């Protein structure tokens, strides 16, 4: 075979591999972001210094090391990863869950309610709050699934509506909580917090907490359900081809409802962890936290796999943690939102790759026919 051919087949292989394309898309997002920073007259190097510091804790400018940054990056990654699973789980069953944000908000709200009003029993209190958060998330997702399966209501429209219902419902509920002002409630009792003394000790008092374990557990559960159970197989079959799945005896209506409920539980868990892990008081939300929306990007970058989504979540956590550092270096922190948005736009544009590959194989065929 000629060398030119091997190179061509290498490009094809790269473009056909989901993982490689994800890496390419992320690099493209950073590239365009870097160019934008340079175009407005800032030094892109400062952006990468901030990202490096949030990743490693090492400050290049003064040579100081602070492990707290690593802890914060890991802590920020937790809700991104869980909201990513929320999107990914539904996507595997062929559904588009834009409702991660609403499910996250309801999880956060219920965790705050139980956190402030629940039994002050060590161990039981936060566990109860987290379970409540997951259940309400599952309920929010499950409603969407039932509407979709029974009434053919598009899950895209219904989840968008529920996001805002959740936001305002959360305000109504949280304003009734003890000590509520326009933006916060009273402090949580110690028993409700997810804080972990060991993590705080090794990461120089970062906010890293027991939520990290829960996230780890969620990764295993996601992988196990998807790859190893009949339920996961049914869901994936439904996602590949709904009609074929129905004909092979897979209960499609139930599959859709269950997959949306589990998706909602992941986002609800994220809300519970943020409420009781990253804050000492309940918040009265005035806007979206955007973890749910970014979870869509996380799952898309991670190709809906357990490991891929986790890695993408860490990337987003790192970017979020780098925001304050960038602002300190005169780089507008919104560049991270731009990079995240660009990544999603490029993922949408990646359907062009399929068109390109089809066009090339057609041309190849033409060449072969003409050569004969």
């Amino acid at each position: 075979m000629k060398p030119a051919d091997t190179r061509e087949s290498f490009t094809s292989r790269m473009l056909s591999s989901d993982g490689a394309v994800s890496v390419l898309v992320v690099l493209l997002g950073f590239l365009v972001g870097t160019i934008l920073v340079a175009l407005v007259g800032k030094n892109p190097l400062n952006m990468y210094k901030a990202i490096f510091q949030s990743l490693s804790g090492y400050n290049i400018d003064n040579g100081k090391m602070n492990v707290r940054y690593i802890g914060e990056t890991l802590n920020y990654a937790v809700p991104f990863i869980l909201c990513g699973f929320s999107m990914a789980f539904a996507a595997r069953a062929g559904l588009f869950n834009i409702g991660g944000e609403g499910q996250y908000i309801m999880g956060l709200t219920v965790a705050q309610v139980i956190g402030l009003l629940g039994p002050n029993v060590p161990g039981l209190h936060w566990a109860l709050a987290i379970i409540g958060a997951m259940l309400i998330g599952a309920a929010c997702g499950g409603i969407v699934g039932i509407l979709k399966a029974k009434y053919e209501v598009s899950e895209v429209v219904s989840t968008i509506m529920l996001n805002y219902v959740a936001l305002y419902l959360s305000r109504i509920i949280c304003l009734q909580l003890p000590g509520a002002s326009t933006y916060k409630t009273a402090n949580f009792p110690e028993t409700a917090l997810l804080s972990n003394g060991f993590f705080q000790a090794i990461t120089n008092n970062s906010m890293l907490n027991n939520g990290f374990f829960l996230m780890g557990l969620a990764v295993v559960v996601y992988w196990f359900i998807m790859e190893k159970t009949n339920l996961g197989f049914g869901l994936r079959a439904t996602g590949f081809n709904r009609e074929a799945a129905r004909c092979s005896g897979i209960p499609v209506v139930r599959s859709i409802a269950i997959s949306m409920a589990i998706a909602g539980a992941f986002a609800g868990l994220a809300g519970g962890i943020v409420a009781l892990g990253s804050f000492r008081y309940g918040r009265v939300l005035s806007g979206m936290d955007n973890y749910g929306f970014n979870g869509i990007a996380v799952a898309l970058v991670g190709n809906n796999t357990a490991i891929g989504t986790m890695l993408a979540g860490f990337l987003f956590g790192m970017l979020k943690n780098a925001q304050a550092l960038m602002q300190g270096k005169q780089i507008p922190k919104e560049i991270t939102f731009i990079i995240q948005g660009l990544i999603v736009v490029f993922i949408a544009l990646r359907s062009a790759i399929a068109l390109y590959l089809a066009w090339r194989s057609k041309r190849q065929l033409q060449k072969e026919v003409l050569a004969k």
Partner: protein
Amino acid sequence: MNTLIGMIPSILMIVSPILITAVGGMICEKSGVVNIALEGLMGVGAFAAAATHVLLEATGLGMPSIWISLGIGALIGAAFSAIHALASINLNADQTISGTGINLLADGVTIFAAQILFSADRTREFKMGMQTDSLGIYPTAYIALVVVVAAWFILYKLPFGMHLRACGEHPHAADSVGINVKKIRYIAVLASGLLAGLAGGCIVLTQTIQYTSNTINGRGFIALAAVSFGRWRPIGVTFAAFLFGTAQAFAIIANNFPALRVLPTEVFNILPYVITLIALVVFSGKNYAPRASGKPYIKGAS
């Protein structure tokens, strides 16, 4: 009763941008492309209008500055929607993903630009916004009226409108009689971006004095809800926009009514979304949506 009549100008102020955006979203879906990026497109339009107005006002231009700003907002909205057009029309991309990407991108781009232009996370405040006429009504209400009537006339009375609707119902049939599906869908998507950008400018120049990350606050999604609640028809969409806009207005002015003061104002914020959800369930099974909406058109495949 007098209080109710006194409310009409504020209701019109809030309804107009929602209606303008919803009409754009309707045109887009009628041609077969779903545009959930309306929220983000309103954001870039609002930012562009606010920034232009602040900068032009400083030069002492006076009233024309408002109209130039509105125009710039609309053009920037259209420019951004070109991304969605390229992705969903040329590249057969998933339209929901592309729309989500534009919404995320708009969040970043607007505030990033504000940081560069004004060194703050919002635009500088402008001194004078749009002025009301002798009835206390903002010109945006008349703009909205023109937009609705023009959209109805073009969609239902001109051959072009019939072609556009054909592209959303059955693109293959449209193609077979010589209609250029891609071109028509491009025009529709760009029109929705133009109108969303215009509406964003209307919001920022009538309801506030600067652009912040909270300026749009879900109105794009309310417009999206108005499209499906209005069953993809101009008269229905107008009715839905009025219903939802009035609910929004009540969230702000409920305090004037002693009877409503017992309810949290958030109840009015929730109404549009809940009504839409219920309507979708009640009307389920009867498919009012354009049949090919949201599906990429691939020539030759059926």
